[in-house]
């Protein structure tokens, strides 16, 4: 007994959880069963600290075809087509081994999307690292970017957008969230539920090895600390070529109607995919580990059941179609093996030839993990550090240039040029040319736009308001390209939820997410939770990464960031009330503290609708949402993108009570920077600020007025490549 106790603790189960398992089984689990329980009852698989909170999120909507619980969410885009999408984290593997960690993160999210029968058409990613003056951060950035590029480029799916922030609290625990978008014929979509007693269970794709045993599930369910080097063998190794064959193979199988259901093998490998398929279908599954193709002959049954070897899928197939299925696998040179059968027993049985080596009720294994209530407590004050990087007496010109050169704001060209952004011939707006990625869908005769956002620093200042802002920023980005939101997915990256402060952040952030989605009438169609993101110095910034997909009728009517023609008017639209709290300037000055102004969601939603209609009608020359670095940075970005200077007077913001500094660099949701015909902009209700022209960026803001040469501003904004050279 004492040895058993030590073992379950080693595997991350509490004594109470172990006792519950014994109770549900009516006996102590054997080693195979214990290994399987420990993974499915881990935070990563069971969402035991977050599931209760997630019930607050609105998931219903007219266009929703698949919601939470499936491999990916899906919305109807018309014409008989569906867009599937999902974001998932691969944070801890990437912090240990960035190249493979990020690459397999992309591989995993692609499988989630083609598991429902959708062809992946785009990847986006959301990355967080420590400050770039740290060698570790540069190493993690370099590895993660190369890993994402390696996998996405090789498999022929374009990486069309994303975001990167650099903040001290991510120094030890970087974040790598990957998003995939897929397109499916609605009639060909497939769910993950196993069905049909007597049907065969077929494992397809790569063989099973010892790589990644307990990788995602173990790494993602505990804090990072000393000795992470020793965890390297738990990081999985990706092979995009294997996945490319598997993808084409699965889509051909689904297109021919040969599969009853399909599920990818991700965290906890066969254990979770078989368990989840059985649970969703209300059936049992018998699996024979002796029939699993192995890389190493001497693997133990428990190793086979928990291996996280990549590029594998599990399918349920009618017995008389198995030969056809295997023939198509052979054509694509991808492995296939009939390893089990669907039963009516309600049990997951693990066999090795004729011997039963494990037998557990599906209900206990998949849905039996206790769900915990959080014990939230607001912190007394700012719990993260403050490091001044900007001199107190800096001139407004220096401040603007410092902000433009700040790695979180500067051009990410160094990053996105390493990604194939164009394969597939759908990419209407390449990275940094518009606020959202735009992909044409000739099959459905329209287009979609995608945005991914989440400023952890602002969420740290106020988890509720910061998360609302992240949702609003996505909605604003979509509006700038004329898109109307269809659905939202998210990845909640937080620290250890057993700590009261993190629990409070999580609780408030989920409420913000729920309220913002409710107010915008955008359903949450899926999500992912990544907890225990902590290093020796404490938790990361609470980072809900929000991704929104929208629809637009005509991809030819899409506004870009860059100002229009010389002489065009520049105007501000929306309920923009900038404040320095939580801003990039406050960070640079080392003045971060708790608190953000509360956004007016209804007013922002109304402004989004106005901008969306104006863009669709071709009424504006450019549209850019005001975000990091405030209006001054938004103006500079639009000017740099156009290669044109501008003269802007911020008096209208001063009239709203803003100080010159707040008008220039204050942040907050709700602001749209537009250019175009003056009368047209005025008729939209936008407030004129100035006009396009010249070779300088002139911003009039009382005693903080500034003039910066366009080339100087562009040089600062493009300085990331030099920093990383």
């Amino acid at each position: 007994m004492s040895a058993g106790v030590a073992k379950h603790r080693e595997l991350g189960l509490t004594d109470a959880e172990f006792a519950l398992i014994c109770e549900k089984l009516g006996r102590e689990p054997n080693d195979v069963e214990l290994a399987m329980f420990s993974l499915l009852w881990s935070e990563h698989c069971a969402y035991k600290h977050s599931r209760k909170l997630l019930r607050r999120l609105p998931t219903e909507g007219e266009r929703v075809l698949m919601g939470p619980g499936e491999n990916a969410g899906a919305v109807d885009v018309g014409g008989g087509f569906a867009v599937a999408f999902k974001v998932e984290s691969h944070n801890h593997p990437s912090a240990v081994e960035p190249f493979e960690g990020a690459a397999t993160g992309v591989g995993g999210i692609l499988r989630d999307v083609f598991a429902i029968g959708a062809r992946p058409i785009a990847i986006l990613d959301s990355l967080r690292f420590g400050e770039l003056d740290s060698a570790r951060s540069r190493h993690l950035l370099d590895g993660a970017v190369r890993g994402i590029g390696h996998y996405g480029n090789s498999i022929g799916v374009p990486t069309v957008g994303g975001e990167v922030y650099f903040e001290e609290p991510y120094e030890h625990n970087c974040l790598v969230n990957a998003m995939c978008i897929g397109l499916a014929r609605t009639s060909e979509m497939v769910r993950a539920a196993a069905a049909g007693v007597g049907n065969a269970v077929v494992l397809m794709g790569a063989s099973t090895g010892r790589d990644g045993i307990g990788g995602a599930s173990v790494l993602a369910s505990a804090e990072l600390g000393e000795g992470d080097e020793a965890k390297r063998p738990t990081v999985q190794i990706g092979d995009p070529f294997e996945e490319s064959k598997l993808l084409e193979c699965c889509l051909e199988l689904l297109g021919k109607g040969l599969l009853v259901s399909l599920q990818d093998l991700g965290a906890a490998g066969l254990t979770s995919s078989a368990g989840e398929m059985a649970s969703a279908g209300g059936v049992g599954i018998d699996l024979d580990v002796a029939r699993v193709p192995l890389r190493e002959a001497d693997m133990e049954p428990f190793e086979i059941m928990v291996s996280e070897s990549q590029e594998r899928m599990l399918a349920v197939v009618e017995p008389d179609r198995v030969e056809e299925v295997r023939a198509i696998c052979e054509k694509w040179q991808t492995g296939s093996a009939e390893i089990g059968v669907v039963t009516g027993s309600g049990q997951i049985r693990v066999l090795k030839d004729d011997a039963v080596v494990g037998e557990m009720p599906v209900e206990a294994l998949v849905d039996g993990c206790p769900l915990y209530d959080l014990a939230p407590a607001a912190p007394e004050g700012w719990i993260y550090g403050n490091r001044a990087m900007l001199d107190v007496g800096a001139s407004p010109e220096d401040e603007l240039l410092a902000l433009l050169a700040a790695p979180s704001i500067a051009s990410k060209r160094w990053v996105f040029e390493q990604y194939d952004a164009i394969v597939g011939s759908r990419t209407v707006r390449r990275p940094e040319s518009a606020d959202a990625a735009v992909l044409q869908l000739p099959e459905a005769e329209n287009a979609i736009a995608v945005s991914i956002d989440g400023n952890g620093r602002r969420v740290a200042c106020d988890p509720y308001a910061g998360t609302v802002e992240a949702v609003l920023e996505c909605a604003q980005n979509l509006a700038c390209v004329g898109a109307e939101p269809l659905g939202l997915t998210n990845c909640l990256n937080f620290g250890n939820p057993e700590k009261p402060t993190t629990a409070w952040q999580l609780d408030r952030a989920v409420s913000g997410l729920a309220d913002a989605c409710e107010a915008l009438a955008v359903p949450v169609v899926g999500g992912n939770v990544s907890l225990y993101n902590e290093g020796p110095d404490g938790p990361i910034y609470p980072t809900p990464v929000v991704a929104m997909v929208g629809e637009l009728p005509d991809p030819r009517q899409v506004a870009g960031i860059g100002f229009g023609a010389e002489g065009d008017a520049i105007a501000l639209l929306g309920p923009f009330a900038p404040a320095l709290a939580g801003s990039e300037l406050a960070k640079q000055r080392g003045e971060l503290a708790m608190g953000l102004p509360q956004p007016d969601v209804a007013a922002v939603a109304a402004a989004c609708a106005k901008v969306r209609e104006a863009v669709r009608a071709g009424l504006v020359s450019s549209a850019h949402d005001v975000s990091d670095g405030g209006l001054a940075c938004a103006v500079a970005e639009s000017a740099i993108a156009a290669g044109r200077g501008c003269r802007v007077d911020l008096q209208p913001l001063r009239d709203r009570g803003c100080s010159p500094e707040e008008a220039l660099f204050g942040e907050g949701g709700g602001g749209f920077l537009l250019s175009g015909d003056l009368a047209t902009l005025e008729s939209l209700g936008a407030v004129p600020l100035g006009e396009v022209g010249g070779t300088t960026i002139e911003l009039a803001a009382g005693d903080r007025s500034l003039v910066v040469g366009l080339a100087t501003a562009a040089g600062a904004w493009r300085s990331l490549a030099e920093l990383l050279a």
Partner: protein
Amino acid sequence: MLQFPGSCDERDALHACSLAGGEARLVWHEERDLSGIDAVVVPGGFSYGDYLRAGAIARFSPAMEAVAEHAAAGKPVLGICNGFQVLCEAGLLPGALLRNEGMRFVCRQLELVESPLGTSSPPERGECAERLSIPAKHGEGRYWAPEETLDALERSGQVAYRYAPGQNPNGSARDIAGVRNEAGNVVGLMPHPEHAVDPLTGSTDGLRVFQRLAGVLA
């Protein structure tokens, strides 16, 4: 249009062929019969995962044997990116493609200077020729050949495309972006003309590459 396991751009190139007025179909890498096919495109991607070296495995495929015969008969062959690498590996085109100088994958819209067949490339690197705006995206696109081969290629008009001055993204020798064989019927280039056929997604300058292949342009 050849299709290997690991090809990425074959569907885009198929679409480009049809826009250019051609009639195109996919040829699976195990097919040997190219009868009835006027022109072959070897598309971009990562054939067979590009293990070992880009294009090094694909050259041994059954379809590539047929392509070699097709080329020997003087019929047109176009290799794009990975297809260019495959044609070089197969010895159908001179030279080799090495890792980019920056050792990183690069995806970038850039300008090419085209030297149509029959015009020997001007030694001053085509300052007067027309420029095509076409994207490149590759990690192994640095064109390399021995100096005397490069001299010979330039003399005999075998340099089909060059990167416009200052736009060489990968350190290719003499800014070479694409070459043709001595007979002129086999052409390979690193940039992707199939991703330059629609004003909505970029430019339309790539169309002429396919029109030339389809015989629409001389």
